[in-house]
């Protein structure tokens, strides 16, 4: 078990570095929505209605729900990487591809990402 923990820690490190390090480097459409409270609220509503019931949570919990308001990203933490993960899914996991199913198209997903960013812990 110790070996596994070490491996997980080591494998997380580059993800954290890549995810957090690049967030401020590549402005995205989510950044445009960040200054629009109505857009952020819509992102929150979608997150609450679609993401936060089981797989993700609004607050950290001792379950297997992946918490998205910290700096730990398994599949890349830049806005574009998050966009791609949600759109394409992650094979062999519960994270199914949402494709282009958002009610108001891609903007809805960018608003969700804006909501995540608006509540995210500052990354070191």
């Amino acid at each position, binding site marked *: 078990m110790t*070996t*596994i923990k070490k491996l997980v820690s080591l494998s997380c490190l580059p993800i954290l570095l890549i995810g957090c390090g690049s967030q401020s480097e590549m402005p995205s459409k989510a950044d445009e929505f960040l200054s629009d409270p109505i857009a952020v609220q819509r992102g*929150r*509503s*979608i*997150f*609450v*209605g679609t993401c936060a019931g089981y797989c993700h949570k609004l607050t950290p919990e*001792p*379950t297997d729900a992946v918490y998205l308001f910290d700096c730990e990203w398994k599949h890349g933490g830049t806005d574009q990487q998050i966009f791609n993960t949600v759109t394409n899914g992650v094979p062999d996991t519960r994270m199914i591809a949402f494709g282009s199913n958002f009610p108001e198209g891609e903007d809805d997903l960018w608003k969700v990402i804006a909501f995540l960013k608006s509540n995210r812990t500052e990354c070191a």
Partner: protein
Amino acid sequence: MSNYGKIFFIVLYALFAYSCTPAEQEANPTLSEIPESAPTFNADDVGEALEITTTHWTNERPIGDGEGPVTDEMLLEPQSAAAGRNWIQFGGDYSNNRHSPIEQLSVENVDNLKFEWGFPSGTLGQFSVSPLVYDGIMYVTTSYNRLMALDARTGQMYWRYDHQQPEDLRLCCGPANRGASIHGDKIFMATLDSRIMAFDRFSGEKLWDSEIIEYFRGFSATSAPLIVKDLAIIGVGGGEFGIRGFFDAYNINTGERVWRHYTVPAEGEPGYETWSGNSYETGGAPAWTIGTYDAELNLVYWTTGNPSPDWNGDARLGDNLFSDSVLAINPDTGERVWYYQFTPHDVWDYDGNSHLFQADIVEDGETTKALVQANRNGFFYAINRTNGEFIRATSYMEQLNWADSMEPNGRPVVNPDAMPNEEPTFRVCPGIFGGMNGAVSGSLNPELGLAFIPVIESCQLMQKGISMHVEGQLFFGGLPIPVDLEPDEDGNWAAYGHISAVDYSTGDIAWRYHDPQPMMAGTLSTAGGLVFTGSQTGHAIGLDAETGEVVWRKRLGGGVRSQPIAYELDGEAYVAIASGNFQSIAGLAGGDVSIPEGGQLYVFKLDN
């Protein structure tokens, strides 16, 4: 069984060969002499070396007491006709009353009910089983669909089948299975990956295996099938995935599907008009718990769950038939004869799938053949099972506020404050688990006129959000926010539970047994005047059926989520109850998540 021995010796030999090479045997170094670079033997290696790849152990020896095949007549008999010897249906018999006729076990001698044998599930997740006992053999299912045949007297295992699950199961609420069913010399089990299969009850050989539907579209099956004539009837889960719900009938000899009954109407069918837009296509209304059968009326009664998405009904305006309903079905055709809807346009996840009882209600000198049910929405219902007419509904909860009252026709009057919204502040009672949850069974004592209901008192805020349907993806439209999980200054949590004894003719509460955590195990009633259940604190509990007083209590360890049964062999009385919790759901309801998971079946015997 002999495979066990072979594997054991192969593994032992491999370990010996690995750890004791000739060179090492010649010069066995002391610990201090082992260089740091020497290979070490860690726990991961042990786990790998001991991995058992066999998943099906069959039996070739003669087993059983020679009682012969289970016949239609046996299934039709009330359980009392078998004098309590066997337990051959999930609900004891078709009445679904889970009332054992065993009289020798009573309030006076229950102290002599002692541990006899135990058996592990080997799996995590809730051990929800209601075992079957027939011919001296117990058939047990576990979480993740292990199926085992055990000697009901000693616990010796005869055969075992471990169903191999895909890794991307679509489960809302844990890897539960609540039991198998039996007919002829076959045992039937439905699986989490939406299959139904039959086994030879002596050998454990699989006889047929049919796919109900592609699981990855959001479906699962957790219930024991209901056997009616030559049909095995099974419904699906998936109300949190935006499925279109249904239950099926399969030929018990061939595994071929005979009929499918959709619980959400298609365009043009009666009830279609109760769904706005095309919301019926993802309307949910799963059928995930077992039904019951009245042979005299030739009606199968089946319940349905919540409409999808759970907490946002804006896109599915209307009553959303036939969600949260009980349906009466002709088993010969699969066609609906009548229905009654408990919670029209549900936006609280108040599945109508709680345990159904058949009971005769006597009122003003007239006897009515009724269905009674402690619904997840907090009301105890009585419905005429001949024609579906509403008789009455009364609260069995200590906290119920989502409805203000009940109209004379059985339609609840909704409290507008309880509607989910984006910034909820109103504590809605009951919370999403109920009331009584369909994952557990109740029991009913017809001599006392009481139904024994396990109750969850755990309220929540109901937050509404925007949802979109992607097949196979969760489709919630919001979420529940637990507010009863913080301990008060005395260390007591706001969430708690009770067993309520409900006079099913009037809805009056005769007594309540209170427990510090929500009650999430089934109950068993016995003719000797006892009620058995289990708690999330890990106890098996025996209550006086007339008073609710605790008369027997044993610590099992794991939180109890199973359905206890009783049986009699060689004139001796046994009670079986499994422990093993699923922490995610238990924690959300208010159970103790610090107790480890892991299933164990316990069998107690009356020491005469």
